[in-house]
């Protein structure tokens, strides 16, 4: 039987799903990237392979997320696409009538507006990581709370503190101040969840018409505290799918299915040595950083040049 692999390599976590011809998820995995996408993907693939029945053959591989290009090379992917498309396609396969997708990931957040299954508008956060998962997890560490307990703790609060939501630097100093004057931990945590929502709606969601059905996804969607404040502030029902963290991977797997060829892929990448070397081109004072990708000591691709002066060799 045919199956298709989709891998979404984000800054914080790496997600993978394998689907069949009916877009049904056969198996999935979710692990931390830990700053090393190549190793993370090797680990991810070995998990997926263990779960996969022998009767399946892989007919397509797609990659998305911030390391999509590199991992696309590693896996010989037949499609490499940006996260926005992947998330939209993945969500549409489960909720064909979705109008708004709210997505908060580790390092970025985005909003996608759709109409009749077509993306009509989108926005991504610019410049800073305020209001993303990375900020939440760093604050959780500072407050010495496991990130999994964050949501339930926030729900206990009846009086969330007000936190400057504009900028992480101000938010953090505000948080410290609130903690030092003796606010309860749950009130601070609830305030933080609320500030994430306000920041998101004021930055990414600015000027966008949020219409139901609204789907909330990305790693942060697992935080029930943030979800509660989205519902309260938008005054709408916000749906979180059980697989909300896998939507990008699901979407890219579907795209890989659409782009399939007769080629059959194997997943024997454990022993492939993959190396990125950066060299500086001194052709002009741009000093472009050229990334050269080696697979088993053989140069397979290089990128980063701004002109044609630097020739692949």
């Amino acid at each position: 039987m045919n199956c298709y692999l989709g891998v979404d390599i984000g800054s914080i976590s790496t997600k993978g799903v394998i689907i069949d011809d009916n877009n049904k998820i056969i198996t999935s995995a979710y692990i931390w990237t830990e700053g090393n996408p190549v190793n993370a993907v090797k680990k991810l693939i070995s998990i997926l392979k263990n779960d996969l029945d022998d009767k399946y053959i892989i007919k397509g591989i797609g990659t998305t997320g911030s390391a999509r290009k590199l991992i696309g090379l590693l896996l010989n992917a037949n499609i490499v696409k940006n996260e926005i498309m992947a998330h939209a396609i993945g969500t549409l396969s489960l909720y064909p009538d979705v109008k708004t997708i709210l997505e908060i990931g580790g390092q970025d957040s985005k909003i996608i507006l759709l109409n009749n299954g077509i993306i009509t508008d989108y926005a991504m956060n610019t410049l800073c990581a305020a209001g993303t998962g990375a900020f939440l997890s760093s604050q959780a560490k500072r407050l010495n709370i496991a990130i999994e307990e964050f949501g339930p703790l926030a729900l206990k609060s009846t009086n969330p503190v007000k936190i400057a939501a504009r900028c992480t630097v101000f938010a953090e100093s505000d948080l410290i101040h609130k903690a030092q004057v003796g606010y309860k931990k749950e009130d601070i945590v609830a305030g933080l969840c609320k500030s994430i929502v306000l920041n998101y709606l004021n930055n990414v969601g600015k000027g966008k018409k949020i219409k139901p059905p609204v789907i909330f996804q990305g790693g942060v969607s697992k935080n029930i505290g943030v979800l509660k404040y989205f519902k309260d502030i938008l005054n709408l029902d916000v749906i979180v799918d059980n697989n909300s963290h896998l939507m990008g991977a699901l979407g890219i797997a579907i795209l890989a299915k659409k782009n399939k060829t007769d080629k059959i892929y194997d997943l024997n990448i454990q022993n492939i040595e993959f190396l990125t070397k950066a060299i500086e081109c001194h052709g002009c004072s741009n000093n472009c950083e050229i990334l050269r990708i080696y697979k088993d000591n053989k140069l397979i691709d290089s990128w980063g040049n701004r002109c044609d002066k630097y020739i692949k060799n």
Partner: protein
Amino acid sequence: MANYYIPAYYLISKTLNVEIIKTPFITFKTIEIGNKYSPEFICTPFKYTLGSFIEALDMGANVLIQFGGGCRYGYYSELQKQILKDLGYKFELYNLVTAGKTDIKRIYKIIKKIDKNFNLFKGLYYLFITYKMIKYMDKIDDYIRRNVGFEVEKNSFNNLLKEMLEKFSLVNNPISLCYLYHKYFKKFKKIKINKPNNCLKVGLIGELYTLMEPFSNYYIEKELAKFNIEIKRFTNVNYLLFSNKKTTNKALKKAKKYMKYKMCADASSNVYWTKYLGQKKYDGIIHIKSSFCTPEISVMPILNKVANDYNIPLIFLSFDANTSEVGIKTRLEAFHDMIEMRRK
């Protein structure tokens, strides 16, 4: 800035008896130097121009020319003068536009100071040729922007443009310039393109420097051309120098619904252009600005409203000294996928 150094060089070399130092093209070094000596939250063009000034001074320049505009741009020359003096450079910096006004008499006096033997009639004669040159260049650029994404042979437009600009810089009278322009326009039209009738069309609007200096917008036009997109850009030097006021007045009339009063810099024009692109059924609009550009930030909510009314997708991109190039590429790719999907 882009290819405009050619008419500028032409004008100065023909009229003034001075040694001209061509600063190298803007590179990472330029922005690194500029960034080092600039206030952190100043708009990015300040950093680029300061970097270029320092590169020029290091090469031996002693006269610098700066302009001013209807936003923070108006303070550039004063602040840059002070920063460069503090760094110990010896130079004269002339600002040709002060308090938002171009005072011809003042400019004449400055020119006389630079070159005592300056001949006014000769100056006006070459000024006229330069004016025409810029106009022709902008017309050709507009044609290239619409078609370069569909060229059959790679770089054919770029190579011909280079050839044309070389010829342009050798002319001595307006008639031969006009002749050259028509000759090359015909050649441009003969370049083989593979353009479908219903290709994707995108308008570029926003802040002038970041729009016009390709290095500062990470060659966005080239990136869009790779997706086979026809590009429309209104901002060019011809607009800035000669038709700015006219366009602003027109904008206030045509986009009356969205604004009552004139907004600073090119904000009003951008509102009008957004409406224009919406009416002409373009597939999308990309708004470009340098980070911290106040006029463009203040106009964003209005642009959103116009785009909503005309149901045209609009994205905003900000560029600073350290903006991630990968991030920009991701957004452009997604934008292209979206407008393509909307077509279907």
